[in-house]
């Protein structure tokens, strides 16, 4: 059974973010506790390395706290936070491209053996391997939609792209992911 998609936000969140921007210690702690897990998860699924994800999450949250006065409350807080996180991930990806051993390419070269029956943990590994084989622009839209439960319009805001372009990218990403599963003989 697929989980219901629950979109966060609302008056309570708006008030807490506004209080955090005004320097309220409790509201600032709430921002950290509410958004650090989401930032860490997104970073981990984008870069695939726990230490790098830790560093990205730390830098991103500090940046969020320092930039709260720049947040435009007419837009969802989630798109602002994920926009900052996404750029941190892009910076990390650029750094990796300059390294001799790219962790992503190592993952791409791995060809898992097809399995008839796999555990939940193995399914998670298969998905993460397949996601790692996608280019970052396809990986990020799938992660934002399926894991972080952003709406399509919110993803368009995070990426700063028209909705039609984002939809096209999501469809292509799904097709490529499905193709990877088929090539590896894996059932979703």
């Amino acid at each position, binding site marked *: 059974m*697929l*989980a*219901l*998609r629950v979109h966060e936000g609302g008056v309570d969140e708006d008030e807490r973010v506004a209080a955090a*921007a005004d*320097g309220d*210690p409790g509201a*600032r*702690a709430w921002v*950290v*506790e509410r958004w*650090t*897990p989401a930032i*860490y*998860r997104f970073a981990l699924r984008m870069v695939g390395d*726990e230490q790098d994800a*830790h560093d990205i*999450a*730390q830098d991103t*949250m*500090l940046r*969020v*706290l*320092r*930039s709260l*006065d*720049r*947040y*435009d409350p007419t*837009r969802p807080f989630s*798109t*602002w936070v994920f*926009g*900052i996180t*996404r*750029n941190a991930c892009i910076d990390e990806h650029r750094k990796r491209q300059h390294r001799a051993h790219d962790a992503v390419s190592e993952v791409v070269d791995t060809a898992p053996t097809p399995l008839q029956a796999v555990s*939940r943990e193995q*399914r*998670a590994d*298969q*998905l993460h391997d397949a996601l790692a084989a996608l280019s970052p622009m396809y990986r990020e839209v799938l992660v934002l939609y*399926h*894991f972080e439960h952003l*709406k*399509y*319009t919110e993803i368009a*805001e995070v990426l*700063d792209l028209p*909705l*039609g372009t984002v*939809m*096209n990218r*999501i*469809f*292509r990403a*799904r097709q490529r*992911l*499905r193709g990877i*599963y088929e090539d590896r003989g894996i059932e*979703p």
Partner: protein
Amino acid sequence: MNHHPADEVLQSFAQGELGDHLAAHTARHIDSCPRCANRALALDPMARAFASVDDPPVPPSLLAELLEAAAKPEVAPAQESGAEAPDARPLGWAEIGVGGLLLTAAWATLWLDPGIANLPAVLRLGRATWATLRALGPSLDQVVLLGTWTALLTVMLVGARMLQRDGRRSLGGAR
């Protein structure tokens, strides 16, 4: 889209077979309709793969470090410094208006009473320039009017520009 799309449409949507316009239209409906969002997910075979994955645990040390940092005043927006410091606060409309009025007053002073005594050097230079311009002919009144409005418009446009830039930055500038 006021009605719920048929399963066939959602199936095509999930498989990327809708045209751009209809896909965007359907996406907007799905965004506002949890029922259709879940129907679309149920029709997407890859969605099952995502649904079977648990969220990775967040390192407790990360949360602890950030909570500690959040309590420090140097992480507050007002204390920010260096490359991440916020840009200068944009002018408010009241400030733009006051600036425009001051400019208008300055122009009007020189226009109505160019013989002001004991002017500082800078204003004497302005007065001399003004006297020269006035000597050129009656059309200078029009020049004054045009100059005044040009100055006012410039100030207002600069202010609007700063406000607009700040609005964009609030979404993407901190990235």
